[in-house]
């Protein structure tokens, strides 16, 4: 048995998360045993749930391999949303055991969870995963030269070597080209948002956790579409994007249930329409990227991602409207 760089990185990320939670917990006056209960339950639950979700998403394969495959951690993978479900359950258990507020605990967990996710995501690069399109596809094709135009990019650089290295790109050993280091982008975005969240003023219990989850889902939708590695798909659709959509819908329901003042039905309907439209726009952008919409083939990749970014911001805003009201 030997140390696995991937596992070491994830363990380090988890340790950072635990330490941050200890700091948050101290600041917010949680009981002393909160941190130890959280740590001792979150690690196994997040590992097991992330594996469980992975097995469920690959159910036919899992059934073919047999139940023991669940514990073959070196074969297959883990799903981030499963890990979050594990942490959620762990927070609930800790809240019950220590007799504290579950919502407050989730709020205190928001920053540590984001930091753990941000740092942990970078481990994908160790695994040779988490990369995106070749940078040449973006820069070395002249969109305005009819002979070269392939519908890929608005930009053209004679020399893209500036981007050929961390933190922008990683070398794909198989083809010798350079690909966007998407895992690093996801990690950086999560860390930046963790910082913003840390500076955000305290709102109603649970609000911070809801906004964290919403942003994380939108970030996943955007970044997963940039990934070109061995991520899990159902057909052409990335599984994480579907899970993100489901979680966002659940968040909207939670926000609407938490509203303290009565809200008109029409408002609720508008919120749902907004969410569904933004999801629809994500799908359109995704199919445009995959070149599945023939009459939109001319849109360069930059254009598709611009549309995707707009759609993701809209996703967050859809939830945020309800989120603000439930705080009012």
């Amino acid at each position, binding site marked *: 048995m030997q140390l*696995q*760089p991937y596992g070491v990185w994830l363990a380090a990320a*988890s340790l950072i998360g635990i330490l941050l939670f200890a700091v948050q917990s101290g600041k917010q006056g949680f009981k002393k045993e909160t941190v*130890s209960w959280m*740590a*001792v339950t979150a690690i196994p639950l997040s590992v097991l749930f992330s594996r469980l979700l992975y097995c469920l998403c690959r159910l036919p394969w899992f059934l073919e391999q047999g139940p023991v495959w669940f514990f073959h951690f070196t074969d297959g993978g883990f799903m981030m949303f499963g890990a979050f479900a594990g942490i959620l359950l762990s927070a609930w258990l800790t809240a019950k055991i220590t007799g504290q507020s579950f919502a407050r605990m989730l709020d205190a967990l928001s920053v540590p969870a984001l930091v753990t996710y941000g740092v942990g995501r970078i481990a994908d690069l160790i*695994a040779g*995963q988490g990369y995106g399109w070749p940078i040449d596809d973006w820069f070395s094709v002249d969109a305005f030269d009819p002979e070269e135009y392939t519908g890929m990019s608005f930009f053209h650089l004679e020399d893209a070597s500036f981007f050929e290295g961390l933190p922008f790109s990683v070398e794909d050993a*198989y083809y010798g080209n350079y690909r966007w280091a998407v895992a690093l982008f996801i990690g950086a975005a999560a860390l930046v948002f963790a910082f913003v969240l840390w500076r955000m003023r305290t709102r109603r219990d649970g609000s911070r956790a809801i906004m964290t989850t919403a942003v994380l889902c939108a970030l996943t939708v955007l970044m997963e579409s940039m990934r070109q590695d061995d991520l899990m798909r159902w057909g052409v659709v990335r599984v994480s994007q579907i899970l993100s959509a489901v979680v966002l819908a659940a968040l909207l329901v939670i926000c609407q249930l938490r509203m303290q003042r009565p809200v008109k039905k029409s408002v609720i309907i508008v919120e749902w329409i907004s969410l569904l439209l933004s999801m629809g726009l994500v799908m359109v952008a995704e199919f445009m990227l995959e070149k599945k919409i023939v009459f939109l083939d001319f849109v360069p990749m930059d254009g598709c991602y611009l549309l995707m970014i707009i759609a993701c911001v809209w996703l967050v805003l859809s939830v945020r409207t309800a989120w603000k009201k439930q705080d009012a």
Partner: protein
Amino acid sequence: MSVHRSRKPEPTGLCIETRTEPTGMAENTLVRLMQWNLHDIIRLYIDQMEGCAYRMKANVIRYVITCLMLLAMAFLISSPALAETEFTHSFEGPDAAEAPLVPLTLEAAEVQPLDLDHLVKGKQLKLEHLNADNTEYSDSSIHAVVTHDVVQFKDKKGKQKLNCYIVRVTIADPTQLRSAMSYDDYDNTKRVKAAEMAKAANAVAAVNGDFFKYFHDSGYIVRQGTFYRDKSNGQRDVLLIDSNGDFHVVYRADSDSIQKAVDALPEGVTLINSFNLGPVLIENGEVKDISQSAVALAKKGGDQFQYPYRMQRVAIVQLGKLQYAIVECNGKADASSGMSVQVFAEYIKDLFPDAQIAYNLDGGGSTNVIFPKNAKGKIKFERIHKNPDSREISDIIYFASTEE
């Protein structure tokens, strides 16, 4: 009167024990408190200490468990992409059961050695020595078996299922291991189908060589004992085959290192063939780290042979004294399937853990492994696996029969 007990933590983490009673009992409580003696106070103090110690101990235990779990993560959660390659075989062939495959045996027999001259070919093959499945050829001088392996494994790009072919050969005399070049002429640059060359040479089994005619400005070329050129540049591993049929390798060979290796041959042993491609995959049972090999250190492009790509691969292996194997893996020219050179080396190791030398030959479209076939009562030479993008080549390594 019932008394309810509860523990409440102080902000400092220490605990105090309080006694509460139903409302309306305050008077009774006061009376009871007044009745407390020293024993009660000591008892309360001990209870407090025990409670705190218990809590502290439980906290410490939980932290220890957390640390152990983090440690376990570091050992157990390996990236799937970094997981050690494991091969699942599904063999088809005359004596193939499971890996590792064993080298073939040959009953000791006196055979007439073949002349070294490159114009001298093997003896005519006979149909009666070929089995019904066209997977085994056996006479008094040679025993060759083809094994088909549907191998499943996982590399950095994910899982794969590939067709691989292994030809194990045992010969009675080292002169049966030979090379041939297109048109039997070093200067003729025309390329020929490998099957044509194998047919002309009466090969029991043949494999493409190193395509030495592709460039005339590199490599150390000796064929059938004749020296042709020395333009080795230190960028490739060279395979030397001596007159005993033994393999020797020179890493990143240049003129000096090759000469040293030739000089080091035992007395009376001469160099018969040399091949310039590589890299060396296995030496004395040890898989080589291809990322540190000649191909990886070579300039990007030609001399790297697309070593990290998934491609068709082919290698020649010495298993023991006059025991050899040719290993071929299927793949596609667009690198969507096949093996990287490293995975190929590990695959060969999985097949033959005790392989003495395994040497990578020219893969991709040059991959050709030829074995005779009974085609309506006539011997026909065909590629075992028909890669769709196969090209004509300039040389083969082959095993010949000496039986008249």
